[in-house]
């Protein structure tokens, strides 16, 4: 009966109860969104680097190399010679070396030239292949293409379709003459390579032989010689183990024409650089959250206080302190549970929209799903709301019942 009374009390004041739920929901949604964005961005960026143990690329900014190779953003620094790739492939410290070549796009989606070994590449040893085919087969000959899940969905590409590549990294450049034929569609990898079109690296070389034989990447050397026709933009290197990775890294310090980087380390350094800005943003978020929690507490408090007369009537009918306490706690709990549920759903809804926007615009896939931190938000939110409801309960109990009758 006490729960029935609590529920009916809330229904009897739909506008007030609705507003309270709305305020609680807005606070919790904000809290959820800040948590999801903070951890989702971090995890999403780190996860994107997982398939890339080591990357070899032209000398220059490691950040640019990671942005270009891992996130398919920005322009490449330059190219490295095919000899470096050959040397790495034969290196006993290396499990696999996969060449990557950038320079073309199709409707804004990066075309990645690579070897067929990319389809055997494992993010972590023993955890299965990184790129798995949903439909079709891997490319076998030049100008066959395997399309990332995101590209296939956005452009409606399917096996058997054809397209012409555009030079450069933005749509609207001059087109190449060769037709690419889609032979496979990838399963989603929940990373930037969902927005990639994979082609045999020879396709890139052949396509650029005709127009600009010296250019594989956007930024390329001006000299034209035969060797540069087979340059690569980057090399994904999978070392045999951690110590082998460190030895390779040491060896590469002496390499004049290329650099070797640990992408995960670059990301960590990037977070460290961005740390101050992130710290400021977090401070602003915390201030907003504290304000939200205060508004939420006040809302629940006023809501509970406005029911003082109903509680006085219950007391007059002989309700014990425990009865009244149960009813008030149940009212506050119902309001906050509803608000928290709506807030969590709203927070996830907004986050989901952001994930989609980020994935389509920047190829950075934020991780989604429930997080342990949300458990704290749920439990904390409900307890905080109930606590706010207890204050008027105590005040009411101290006030003479007759005052409200």
């Amino acid at each position, binding site marked *: *009966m*006490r729960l*029935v*009374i609590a529920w*009916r*009390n809330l*229904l*009897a*004041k739909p506008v007030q109860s609705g507003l309270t739920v709305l305020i609680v929901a807005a606070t919790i949604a904000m809290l959820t969104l800040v948590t999801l964005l903070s951890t989702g961005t971090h995890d999403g960026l780190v996860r994107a680097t997982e398939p890339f143990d080591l990357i070899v690329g032209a000398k220059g900014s490691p950040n640019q190399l990671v942005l270009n190779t891992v996130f398919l953003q920005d322009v490449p620094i330059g190219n490295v010679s095919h000899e470096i790739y050959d040397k790495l492939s034969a290196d006993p410290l290396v499990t696999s070396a996969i060449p990557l070549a950038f320079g073309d796009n199709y409707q804004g989606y990066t075309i990645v030239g690579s070897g067929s070994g990319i389809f055997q590449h494992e993010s972590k040893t023993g955890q299965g292949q990184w790129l798995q085919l949903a439909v079709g087969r891997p490319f076998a000959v030049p100008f066959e293409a395997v399309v990332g899940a995101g590209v296939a969905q956005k452009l409606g590409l399917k096996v058997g379709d054809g397209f012409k590549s555009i030079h450069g990294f933005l749509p609207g450049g001059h087109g190449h003459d060769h037709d690419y034929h889609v032979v496979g569609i990838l399963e989603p990898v929940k990373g930037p390579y969902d927005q990639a079109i994979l082609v045999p690296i020879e396709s890139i070389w052949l396509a650029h032989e005709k127009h600009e034989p010296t250019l594989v990447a956007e930024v390329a050397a001006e000299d034209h010689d035969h060797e540069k026709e087979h340059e690569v933009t980057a090399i994904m290197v999978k070392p045999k183990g951690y110590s082998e990775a460190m030895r390779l890294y040491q060896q590469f310090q002496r390499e004049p024409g290329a650099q070797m980087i640990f992408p995960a380390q670059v990301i960590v350094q990037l977070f460290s650089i961005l740390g101050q800005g992130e710290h400021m943003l977090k401070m602003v978020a915390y201030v907003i959250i504290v304000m939200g929690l205060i508004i939420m507490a006040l809302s629940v408090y006023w809501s509970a206080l406005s029911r003082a007369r*109903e509680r006085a*009537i*219950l*007391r*007059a*009918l*002989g*309700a*014990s*302190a425990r*009865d009244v306490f149960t009813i008030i706690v149940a009212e506050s709990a119902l309001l906050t549970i509803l608000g928290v549920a709506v807030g969590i759903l709203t927070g996830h809804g907004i986050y989901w929209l952001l994930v989609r926007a980020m994935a389509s615009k920047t190829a950075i896939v934020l991780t989604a799903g429930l997080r342990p931190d949300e458990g704290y938000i749920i439990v904390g939110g409900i307890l905080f709301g109930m606590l706010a409801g207890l204050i008027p309960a105590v005040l009411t109990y101290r006030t*003479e*019942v*007759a005052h409200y*009758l």
Partner: protein
Amino acid sequence: MLEVNQVRKEYRDVDRAVTAVTVDSLIIQNGEQVALVGPSGCGKTTLLHLISGLLTPTTGEIKVDDITISAMKETWRDTWRATAVGYVFQRLNLLGSLSVLDNLLVAMSFARVIPKKEQRQWAHELLTQVKLSDKMGKFPHELSMGEQQRVAVARAVINKPRLMLADEPTASLDQDNAMLVLEMLRQFATLSGSILVVSTHDKQIMSQFERICFLRQESKGVIDSATCDSLA
């Protein structure tokens, strides 16, 4: 038996004490039905609140069947009130968020006098007696004033209390409804052998009672003292 001895209730008004009611002695026997009369502001409501245990006297004592209500702990008074007191408030104080039936079930759930499985049946029976069997699912605001008054009466008697108090129960009713409500109260009190105290300033209502208790306001305009006389 209800005994009110040397009771005085004071309120703090800023920095001075204001006396709301003073009763030297009032004794009402079990089964007795009494009209409590007096000018507006003389302390009738305060006295009923004191008798029901909603207020505690500043001085003096109130006993019901030799139990000193005024000395009880608040939690015990709550329990005692749930089982022993049926109160028809001046403002009715029906719970607006609950249906007519639920208003009665709530009162029973706190008292725990009627076995749980019989509560619904008894509430139906009582509402039929007060001619509201077709309004059980309605909310108080959907009823007329007379109907709301009858719900308040039904709620007051639902636990078969030893003490029935009614504060101006007919004030907002027309003559027919006023007599109907009064008749119901008197009938229930007679059947259960309860004490009935009805505060009123309506002469026709007063005339229905054999005993009238008069609360006198000594200083006109300021409630600083009142006494109670029993008139046979």
